[in-house]
């Protein structure tokens, strides 16, 4: 299971970076989504996977009697998902607006104002 996730993280990161380097705006957006998901799975993986043990400890137990899943990575991922949701929503609107004002999907054509020195 861990090996599978490691491979998945690798694929998501490399595909994400590859897509960001393309010239199309839609691919840029997809690249960011993949990168964000890759980072979330990485955090999940780094917290050490514990199968079928929810991080809920019975109130009667004073000592740990079993191996429980680490709740911190789950909390981190939840926060990171919400943040990346907000950022992605903003990026979609921004790129849509850019497409409307410039009429192109090509990121390389957005350098007009950089030319005047």
């Amino acid at each position, binding site marked *: 299971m861990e090996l599978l996730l490691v491979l998945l993280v690798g694929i998501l990161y490399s595909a994400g970076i590859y897509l960001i380097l393309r010239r199309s705006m839609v691919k840029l957006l997809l690249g960011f989504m993949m990168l964000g998901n890759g*980072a979330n799975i990485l955090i999940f993986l780094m917290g050490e996977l514990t199968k079928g043990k929810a991080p809920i400890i019975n109130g009667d137990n004073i000592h740990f009697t079993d191996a429980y899943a680490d709740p911190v990575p789950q909390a981190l991922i939840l926060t990171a998902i919400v943040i990346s949701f907000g*950022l992605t929503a903003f990026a979609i609107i921004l790129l849509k607006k850019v497409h409307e004002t410039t009429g192109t999907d090509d990121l390389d054509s957005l350098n007009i104002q950089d030319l005047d020195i």
Partner: protein
Amino acid sequence: MISNFILAPILAHMITAIVLLFFWKNVQAQKTVSVIGNIVGFLVSWRLFALVWENGNMTLQMGGWQAPFGITFVSDTLSATMVMLTAIVSLAVGIYSTAATNISRIRYGHFFIYHFLIMGLMGAFLTGDIFNLYVWFEVVIISSFVLLTLGGKKRQMEGAVKYVTMNMLASSIFLTAIGILYGITGSLNIADLPQHVAAVENRGLVTVTALLFFVGFGIKSAVFPMYYWLPSSYHTPPSAIGAVFGGLLTKMGVYSMIRVFTVVFEPDDFMLGVFIVIAILTMISGALGAINKRNIRRILSYFIVCHIGYLIAGIGMYTELAFVGVVFYLIHDVIVKSNFFMMSGLIQKIRVTQDIYRLGGFYKDYPKLSIVFGIILFSLAGIPPLSGFWPKILLFQEAFKAENYVLLGTLIFASFITLFIVARIWSEVFWKDLPKPNAEEIDHFAPFHMRGRLALVLPVVGLAVVSLLIGLNASFVFEVAERVAHELMNPSIYIDSVMHHLK
């Protein structure tokens, strides 16, 4: 010392932002509430700084969960200084925006987002938890995205694409670094991390994590080779927004870098070498980029990049005296860069253009204002006794002592180019006669009502006075910087103030 007061600067701006929501369409009320909020924020930050200065570090464990389990807020002298600077700039720019921002921007929530941005900055400076730092970073960048794109002009959109892309990439890298750090140490508290980092056996993994942090913060603070988003976006929003961005956002990256690389990671020779090389390249590319630009704000954008190099070089030298220089330079830089952007906005208001070859005759028309602008320009260049001079001397001296003559040469080169460009701006904009009076170039400043003119000039003069005071009263700033540097070189002070209950 444990105190709830540490949250006051954050809460002041959060409450202001919430109150502003109730005056969504009432422009006049928004301006009043924003200025009051900024004044309260300023007073509270001043008090926080005074408390930290007298009693030492302050900490707050959120919800009573003791470190390292809960989220900690820490204010050491560096944090308190940065909060103080943020408050000064936010007050000045807040007053400036009441006159400089047009009504449609205010109707779409300019002040509301502005206060959230300041809140995010204060949070980033005060937090003691590395994941919490990430969250504050996101608060800041999402607010900055909105401020940058509000208005939706074509050039704003073009700049925003680059800005948004690079900042989202930086966040992803930062998050990855946090994930790996948690995996190898099992902690997120900045004060708790060093003992775990030191215990990790796989040193290669630690170096990789440190480099990931460096790249993440490096993009945010615009160091070579990841700086190009800054000059292509910072001149697109209105000057008031540029002032906050230019003064504070990149410094947030530098602050995080200082924090992480003094407390969490003990940089080895390899890391310090990376710092020095990056600093040299940043200074050279920033300085050379500024030479052939004609737009004042574009010149300034490259100056920001160039002067970030000074700070990174100081961190790379990693001695107590170098840190004194870094902190002093940080204090000077925040004030002067913000003021420079506001000054460029004022010039645009008066002459419509920001192209230095089409400007001129400023000294003849506005002699008093020109003297104020002169103070800003020459403290940026570091003419003694103005504020930029003292930290530069320290950095030169440390580079000389370290026998790193390439670095010393670059520092002098960047300084010289800065002086050259500042002198050129002075002669083109202020001394030279106005080239040919253009019919479109009408003065929007003179017919402005008295209160508006005052709101535009007062913050610029105020920050210029602060620059002058930093230069003339350097001994106090030195004292602050020395204390900060002492705390940075002895991270156990920071760690003990958070973990004292474990003793």
